[in-house]
């Protein structure tokens, strides 16, 4: 309940009247849910730390334009200007990388790592899964969010900016999604 009160207070403080606020102040309501130090503590809410700014810009744009539907984010983004989208994306990229909760079971990690090679996740997302340009960092992302996202790409309930992830996910089973998320959430 106290968290809720904090969020409301922060939302109020980010009204257009307070235009002279620093970006850190303006981003505070975002980080109340997404984690102040880049790592999210809230279920199904992605960590944003060190996220690729080109990717974040696309997602914020899609939220603003209702191309990606998640009501709280559509609401947060609806009045942002193009410059706002760029400023937030660039700021988010400066947050510390998300941190893994634990190292994971070695055998399970090894088996899942083989899956990331098999499906060439590392080709676009980079060998360390830090992403590049429009391709997001997925290393140490929240496990529940990774599972949710891959499932949504697979059944096309989350529309990607382009068709790439919908296409890639077609041949990946739900059991494999669970293992991929386990690995990516913990990868060193």
């Amino acid at each position, binding site marked *: 309940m106290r968290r809720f009160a904090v969020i409301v207070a922060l939302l109020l403080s980010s009204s257009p009247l307070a235009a002279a606020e620093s970006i850190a102040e303006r981003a505070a309501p975002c980080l109340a849910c997404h984690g102040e130090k880049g790592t999210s503590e809230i279920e199904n809410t992605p960590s944003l730390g060190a996220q690729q700014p*080109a990717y974040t810009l696309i997602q914020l744009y899609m939220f603003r334009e209702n191309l990606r539907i998640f009501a709280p984010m559509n609401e947060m983004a609806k009045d942002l200007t193009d410059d706002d989208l760029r400023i937030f994306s660039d700021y988010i990229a400066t947050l510390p990388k998300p941190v893994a909760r634990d190292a994971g079971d070695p055998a399970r990690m090894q088996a899942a790592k083989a899956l990331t090679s098999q499906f060439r996740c590392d080709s676009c997302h980079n060998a360390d899964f830090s992403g590049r340009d429009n391709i997001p960092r997925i290393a140490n992302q929240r496990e529940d969010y990774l599972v949710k996202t891959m499932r949504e790409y697979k059944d096309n309930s989350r529309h990607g900016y382009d068709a790439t992830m919908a296409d890639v996910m077609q041949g990946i089973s739900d059991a494999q999604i669970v293992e991929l998320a386990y690995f990516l959430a913990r990868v060193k």
Partner: protein
Amino acid sequence: MTVYASARQALLASVFVGACVVGAAAQQSDTTTATPPAASVTPSPAAPAPAATPPAATPAPAPQAAAPAPAAPALPPGSPLIGRPADSVAAAKLAPVAPPPIPTAADKLPTAKLKVPAGFNIEVYAAGMANARSMREGDKGTVFVGTRLIDKVYAVSNQDGKRQVKVLASGLYRPNGLAFKDGTLFIAELSKISKIDKVEDNLDNPPKPTTIYDKLPKDEAHGWKFIGIGPDNKLYVPVGQPGNNVLHDDAHGQIRRMNLDGSGAEVYVKGMRNTVGFDWNPETKQMYFTDNGRDWMSEAVPEDELNRVSKAGEDFGAPYCLQGNILDPEFGWGKSCADYTAPVGLLGAHTAALGMRFYTGKMFPAAYKNAIFIARHGSWNKSQKLGGDVVVAKLNKDGTVKSVEPFLTGFLEDNKYVGRPVDVLQMKDGSMLVSDDWNGAIYRITYGKQKVAGKK
């Protein structure tokens, strides 16, 4: 015609694919092809790395015989990554290129970097349209613009000598394709076709589009559409191959045609992989279409195709025969390229040849009359990018391709795009528009001395 929603899963499951097979068999080439297609387009003068230009198309050059990845297990059937080397540092740098979502301001467009042949001029026609793609001109001069990554169709109108950009429709799903006939705008979303009657009379308060046809698969892969109305007054609607390299069922890998109310749909072209542009030869009335070749076979092949349709039901070979003379390493076994119609022209490896139009105007010099202008969006799955330009294909009297030459270049800089052309549109005055989905803009190309506002 039977059209299934999607039999893709069953189809994919029947396809066994091994990465090693791909690597080892990449050389398979069919020597029985009777007519080699026209030579590859000459490299654009702006392309930074001539060394990466694919050699002439026939016979297929041997890609580097990369050792098959020893440890990587097979990809699932139909995966878009089949053939992608798992152990190549160079290939690992390749990923689909997404345009910035926010359109570039008119004064920040790369217009000054763009090059056209002597005597031609280029200027900005309209800007600020995120992801501007396919274009059509209305009877009253409105230019309609579709999008693929967002949900809008724009209308660019002339009012009191000033161009105005309006959102004509929004909330659409990948509305890439447009056609215009007798006052009606047809819009192709990913899996349905709709229309707005008397659209130019209602630009300020346009009605919602009404659906005329929705018996279309919903695949994301190659699901966005280019559409057009032929000289037979039928609407032509492609359904792409639902993945990089997969077999087609009865509903995919084809161009359909139908009446303008959506009735009477039939398959017109088969063996098509992914066309995002077509037009009809003004003299022979034959349909010509661009088709994008498969990914991950090699840097140099297969090339994108320019095809000509001689009769309904013709098969152009995908996914069995590539660029008219290479049997596909996976699916080509037991097939012969002689059984399929070969392209009349090749447009470079992975160049993403998209929108095309025959030039019938009077403004450009006579050498361009009835030539085909083709927008090449530009490669992503190739180390040295190729395309990102507009080329012109000049034809022989018999409709075959005489030459393919660069026309508009300069979108590629240090192996990066500063813009990406998607479609070309000849205006009634003979000038030509080129859309750029990277910057969300449209350029206008004219010939001779023009009163060009805003030109540097």
